[in-house]
């Protein structure tokens, strides 16, 4: 067996085990005797499901719905406009690649870059800090997106010391808050939740216990390999069927009860939760991560007077009004229900945020062909 074959033998991608799990899942759903609706709140889960074609392996009566799991997608228009306004005012804005195409009220950061604005794609906050060190005469702003996982990295960079010309425009979001909002939606039929393994690595799994008790919905913490997803779904459907609103950790190789203590300490030393608007969802109580007042010197919102009216912050967008991203992130619609999907709204010219990020529901459906039934092709 050569190296490539060995790599393919990764046990978390073993087809025989996947088949066995899929069969067990089918038996579990059949035992429930009715369709079961569960939600994952993590773009990485959708990517794993889509990339490995797992929907073709799910029983037809199991509906696995994509929730608001992509931090780029839920970054709100005014937040993008703040970054656009900073770049328009001459600051060097560093951010993750996906954020460039995120539509603002009238322009994206990518548009500003195309017009000659100083917008740079970075792969880590550290890289943005290095850029600030290399350009002491410029204001360098890191437009920070991501859930608690990436917020920890931002916090660590700030605690490690940053040059005086560096600041952070935080669009960081806090996952547990989003699940609360989805569970409270009026017509939700979600019976159980898959929690994101990487976010839970930081927060620990115990944080979901009050949520499970309050909503009566079980939560299973899941990893991101195909077998992780299948095993977690099997556990989740079992809990739903037995009406046990418990939290089960199916990702114990990374996730503990209490989480990553040192990382959490860093996170809360720098950030605090505040209410925030999530694109397409609603106002999410405790959904945003804001820099604490003692870090005002590195907080772009406190350092600069950002006027988004100058970059079309009040403009009306006819296409955006027809976009269903909000309902898609709330699992009330599928991407294919949207009249813009694949037509006016495509990955190279996204209207809604779900078409922007590689973790966005619409982008994933577009890239992986939605959810057509391909089981019989070539048989």
């Amino acid at each position, binding site marked *: 067996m050569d*190296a490539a074959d060995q790599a393919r033998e990764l046990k978390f991608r073993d087809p025989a085990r996947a088949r066995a799990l899929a069969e067990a899942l089918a038996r579990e759903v059949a035992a429930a005797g009715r369709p079961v609706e569960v939600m994952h709140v993590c773009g990485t889960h959708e990517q794993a499901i889509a990339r490995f074609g797992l929907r073709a392996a799910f029983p037809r009566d199991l509906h696995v719905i994509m929730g608001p799991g992509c931090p780029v997608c839920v970054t709100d228009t005014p937040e993008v406009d703040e970054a656009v306004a900073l770049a328009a005012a001459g600051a060097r804005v560093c951010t993750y690649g996906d954020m460039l195409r995120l539509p603002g009220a009238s322009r994206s950061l990518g548009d500003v870059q195309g017009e000659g604005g100083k917008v740079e794609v970075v792969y880590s906050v550290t890289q943005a800090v290095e850029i600030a060190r290399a350009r002491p005469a410029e204001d360098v702003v890191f437009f920070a997106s991501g859930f608690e996982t990436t917020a920890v990295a931002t916090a660590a960079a700030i605690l490690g010391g940053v040059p005086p010309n560096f600041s952070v425009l935080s669009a960081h979001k806090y996952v547990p808050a989003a699940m609360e909002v989805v569970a409270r939606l009026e017509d939700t039929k979600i019976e159980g939740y898959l929690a994101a393994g990487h976010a839970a690595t930081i927060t620990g799994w115990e944080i979901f216990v009050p949520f499970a008790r309050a909503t009566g919905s079980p939560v299973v913490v899941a990893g991101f390999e195909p077998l992780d997803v299948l095993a977690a779904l099997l556990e989740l459907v079992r809990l739903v069927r037995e009406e046990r609103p418990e939290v089960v950790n199916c990702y114990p190789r990374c996730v503990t009860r209490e989480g990553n203590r040192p990382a959490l300490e860093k996170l809360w030393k720098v950030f605090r939760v505040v209410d925030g608007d999530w694109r397409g969802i609603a106002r999410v109580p405790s959904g945003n991560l804001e820099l604490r007042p003692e870090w005002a010197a590195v907080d772009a919102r406190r350092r600069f007077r950002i006027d988004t009216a100058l970059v079309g912050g009040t403009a009306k967008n006819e296409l955006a009004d027809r976009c269903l991203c909000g309902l898609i992130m709330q699992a009330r619609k599928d991407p294919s229900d949207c009249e813009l999907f694949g037509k006016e709204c495509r990955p190279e010219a996204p209207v809604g945020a779900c078409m922007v990020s590689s973790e966005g529901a619409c982008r994933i459906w577009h890239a992986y062909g939605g959810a057509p039934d391909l089981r019989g092709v070539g048989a």
Partner: protein
Amino acid sequence: MTSGSPGGAAVERIGLKHGAGGRAMRRLIEELFLPLGGPVDGVGLAAMDDGAALRVGDRWLVVTTDSHVVQPPFFPGGDIGRLSISGTVNDLAMMGCTEPLGLTCAVIVEEGFPRADLARIRDSMAAACAEAGVTVVTGDTKVMGKGELDGIALNTAGFGFTRRLVRDDGLRPGDRILVTGTVGDHGLAVLTRRRDLRIEGALSSDVAPLNGLVRAALDAGGDAVVAMKDPTRGGLASVLHEFAEKAKVGVLLDGPSVPVNAETAAAAEILGIDPLVVANEGKAVLGVRPEAADRVLAALRGHPLGRRAAVVGTAVAERPGDVILDTGLGRRLLAEVEGEPLPRIC
């Protein structure tokens, strides 16, 4: 990209996606450049094949041209010189012309480019020419001012005769799809070497002239080789889409059979890039009638550049124009790339 102009009307501009080998590039060519073509006795511009083929007596004159810009110009496993020779030799080979008569070479250099680097690129072109059994018969040199060009751009054209043309629209349901080796190596070797990524490893580009390998396949398969294309920009996914669309068949790709180097697979996993959609510069994809598949596979594997050749898929009657990927764990449609995974890799 669209952006506002003072008059308020949107100005359409060319973006990097228009050169990425995917849908955007094809649309640009169709809308802008196809009117330059006209009726020819053979394969002309409208066919959008690897090159043109013009009937000369009882043979076909195959002509192709290709420009090369790559950042960085030297990368693990090759450089822009080897790339420029291999790319053109391979485009000829994909149409069945495995004995090119000659190549042309135009070089555009940025002021200040190190002469030693230019000599190194020349040496590498010479080595690739020797492997392919071809020489450069004419050329052109230009220098542009500092900042007007990013280092160097190379254009090569090639020409030669063939008695039998291989096109890319010949698939029928039941035909087998073969690749001549591991996919994704060039794209990931170049991507990981780009300054801003800082991923280290033993990745190496596969850039190589393939006319010898293709000759072996054609000698073994003859008329049973019905489609052929090199999976450069856009990768294997793009080629399979072209096969499927042009022949109006579906292509069922068996993911686990596609050979991928372990290093390439690991880098792809870290970067979140699918090896099926990144460039190769030393691989070919062949559509072969089922009865000849074993014969052609054996011929490919008998050649040093084809040792890891494999049968990776089958043409099907269902879902014409689509590529269906069986991952071994489930199935999905394999999308063609929209734009650049990351800019300028070949």
